[in-house]
């Protein structure tokens, strides 16, 4: 294990892996079937949506169960723009800005709420959004949805890339840029502020960070990412309908986010892979029992790596160590996430602090 860790931390090894992976990402669509390319593109789409979710939930600690509403909004704007023949950059801009503005307005009102109350407001978004989408059918195509044909391989590249490959490259490049943007956000001052707000609002206030303002900000950014994901969704699926907003999509994204790794950029990618692949996997096992296996897989993954897939290496090390040390520690220890650097002064994870966080979640 140790030698493995050392290997991956070596800069040159990483560089080599990076180059290999980049090459793979470029070459893969050329040799893969349309299905695989579709899957990969869909992963990129949901990676962006879940990334937004991770910013508001993972980094800032605000429960959001309404991300699918922004995904749907973005997809609808894109679909409308495409049918009206607007230029693609304009469509992209609107797909980012309009959901962000909607998110901002909602957040201005809702960010004062906490925990469950906030969760409830966000649950309401897809629930209100679906009948609204049906109501405004001249824009949305009603319940039959809107089918588009766009983002096809341009003429100048006739005979080189096919539609699915072209769409893959467009989507993956935009997704990569969104990831870069998110990475810079969470690594910077803003990300630090998000984390402090999540950890302890009182501390945030005491050092001049307005929790309200940063929550609104996080929510707005999440909505923007959701809208962009909607744009990409339309590019990949070429179709949108009220089902895109479905509350279940939101719930599944939250589950995927935690499974991938909360408050982790890398984890978001695992989350998207999980989100797209698990239904396939369940279908492979038995198409009549997908719910059973999806639920079982979800629980199994969380049991093995409670901290998300991203914590897998740490988890393996931890399990190995506890196997070695077994005997003198009470069994409970293994279950308790620890915070070694804080020493005796900090409350343990079992202490009042974590319960205070629990309480906040409930809005009490």
């Amino acid at each position, binding site marked *: 294990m140790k030698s493995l860790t050392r290997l991956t931390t070596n800069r040159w090894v990483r560089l080599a892996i990076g180059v290999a992976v980049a090459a793979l990402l470029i070459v893969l669509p050329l040799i893969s079937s349309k299905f695989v390319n579709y899957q990969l593109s869909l992963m990129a789409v949901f990676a962006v949506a879940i990334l937004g979710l991770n910013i508001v939930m*993972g980094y800032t600690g605000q429960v959001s169960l309404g991300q699918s509403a922004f995904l749907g909004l973005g997809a609808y704007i894109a679909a409308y723009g495409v049918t009206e023949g607007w230029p693609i950059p304009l469509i992209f801009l609107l797909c980012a800005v309009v959901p962000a503005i909607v998110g901002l307005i909602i957040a201005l009102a*809702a960010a004062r709420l906490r925990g*469950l*109350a906030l969760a409830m407001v966000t649950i309401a978004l897809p*629930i*209100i959004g679906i009948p609204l989408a049906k109501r405004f059918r001249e824009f949305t195509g009603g319940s039959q949805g809107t089918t588009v044909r766009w983002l096809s391989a341009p003429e100048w590249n006739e005979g080189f890339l096919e539609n699915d490959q072209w769409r893959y490259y467009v989507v993956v490049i935009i997704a990569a840029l969104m990831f870069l943007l998110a990475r810079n956000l969470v690594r910077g001052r803003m990300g630090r502020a998000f984390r402090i707000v999540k950890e302890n609002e009182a501390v945030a206030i005491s050092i001049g960070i307005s929790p309200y303002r940063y929550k609104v900000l996080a929510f707005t950014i999440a909505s923007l990412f959701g809208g962009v994901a909607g744009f990409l969704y339309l590019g990949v699926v070429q179709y949108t309908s009220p089902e895109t907003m479905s509350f279940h999509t939101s719930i599944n994204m939250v589950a995927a986010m935690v499974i991938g790794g909360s408050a982790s950029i890398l984890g978001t990618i695992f989350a998207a892979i999980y989100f797209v692949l698990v239904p396939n996997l369940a279908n492979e096992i038995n198409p009549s029992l997908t719910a059973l296996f999806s*639920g079982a897989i979800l*629980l199994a993954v*969380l049991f093995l790596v409670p901290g998300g897939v991203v914590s897998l290496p740490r988890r393996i090390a931890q399990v190995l160590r506890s196997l070695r040390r077994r005997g003198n520690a009470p069994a409970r220890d293994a279950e308790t996430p620890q915070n070694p650097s804080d020493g005796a002064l900090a409350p343990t994870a079992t202490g009042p602090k974590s319960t205070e966080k629990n309480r906040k979640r*409930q809005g009490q």
Partner: protein
Amino acid sequence: MEYFIQLVIEGLATGSIYGALALAIVLVNRATGLINFAQGGMAVLSTFVAYALFDAGAPLALAILGAIVFAFALGAVLERVIVRPFERGDPDTAVVVTIGLFVLLGGVAAFFFGYEPRQFPSFFGLETLNIAGVFVSLRSIGTIVVLALVVVLLQVLFRGTKLGLAMRAVADNPVSASLSGLPVSWLLMIGWGLASVLGVIAGVLVAPQLFVSPGMLDFVLVYALAAAILGGLDSPQGAVIAAWFIGVIENLAGAYIDIVGNDLKIAVPFVVMIIILIVRPQGLFGRKVVVRV
């Protein structure tokens, strides 16, 4: 006027459906301090047990009793085996575990019974009373009575018994509660078991109308959550009143406000809820909590 009253009555009846599940949510929250999506799954699976027992020839009362016993065991076992390791970790993870349980339990129910809705007999018969031109079904009255009874029982449990006190203490701060000698893990198991029982009571109350199917409570659960939060989350009577309120305004808005119509009436209670929460974040009946730093 009769039409108006009839709509209000229908709203109350529908609200009772939401209220039944909202009570279960309130109990889980008070007993375990957790928001529990698995609640719906446990209720559905247990209601299926009632269905299966009835189908196998047991009298309805016995079938429901059997389902209640099953529900208690199911809740307690799930808490002990699956939820326990996550209770002290990140709350988001715990919530996602309950999401996983929700999906899994639905899948288990589907595995045994399929997805097609199945009919479930009502305890109260199909008769309807005509009171001065307003029609009230026995089923609605029965549901309301049972709800009221459950609210009273819950009040007695939480306010009047040592068990209730201990459950509240554990939900509030499990570590501190254990320092006073409260057997926290035991109490959490009982809390989940009781909540699961409330869930199955809700399930058999609404099953004659919604039929029994793995997804029977999916949307009711959303309304129930809204009711529980609107009611202040720790107040059983608040949750029921909020549920009635939601049922009534939804019906009235759908019937009287043209721009709302039947398609958008679902939005009305949620918009109202959002406005109320923004004005009173603790909900209609929740106690105001002053958080000191």
